[in-house]
């Protein structure tokens, strides 16, 4: 019989937390966000929020790491909103986020031109 441990391993276990089970993000909330994304979204399969819980982990991981790179380039130890904005501005696949943070990028774009790949 399979142990719960094997499954948690796949989820890169954040531990078991009562309400959300072995997931790091609440599935019901994810489902709400999905439904609000468009009037065209009618039905969502049970596994879809689960898939997003993993995808969001990957997304948050990547955005955080890239932001942190900006932080340490500035010889700082506190990750600021501006670092996130810079990471977004310098990553093609995060273009869809530019409008969300763009008010803070204008001061930094010039400074970081040398660091843009």
């Amino acid at each position, binding site marked *: 019989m399979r142990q719960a441990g094997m499954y948690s391993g796949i989820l890169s276990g954040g531990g078991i937390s009562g309400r959300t089970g072995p997931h790091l993000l609440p599935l019901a909330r994810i489902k709400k*966000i999905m439904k609000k994304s*468009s009037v065209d979204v009618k039905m969502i399969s049970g596994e879809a929020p689960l898939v997003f819980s993993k995808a969001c982990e990957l997304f948050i991981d990547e955005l955080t790491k890239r932001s942190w790179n900006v932080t340490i380039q500035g010889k700082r130890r506190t990750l600021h909103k501006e670092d996130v904005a810079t990471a977004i501005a310098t990553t093609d696949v995060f273009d*869809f986020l530019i409008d969300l943070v763009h008010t803070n990028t204008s001061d930094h774009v010039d400074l970081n031109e040398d660091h843009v790949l």
Partner: protein
Amino acid sequence: MGDEQDKLLPVANVGRIMKRVLPPNAKISKEAKETIQECASEFISFVTGEASDKCQKENRKTVNGDDICWALGSLGFDDYSQAIARYLHKHREFERERASAKIAASNQNNIVHESNG
């Protein structure tokens, strides 16, 4: 305020995921956490929209895990798409085994009842 929070993942969960990829002495400003919290919701909306469009074109009503996997690839998140494909495969396998274990268990019970009846 309750209404707005419904569109976002809990900031505490987001913060926990961020901490996992940062060194132990790293600090995260509250604003940075909130920014990434907003970005994560935008990510869900963005990918869901793409997946939903595909379902519409194919005259399907339900957005499933495979659609999200496809949408991730379509939008440039190739690494996530591959990771999700593996994750989905393992999840479905796990669910299948759990389902057959349940059936086997209830068959056992039926046999016991029959012999008692």
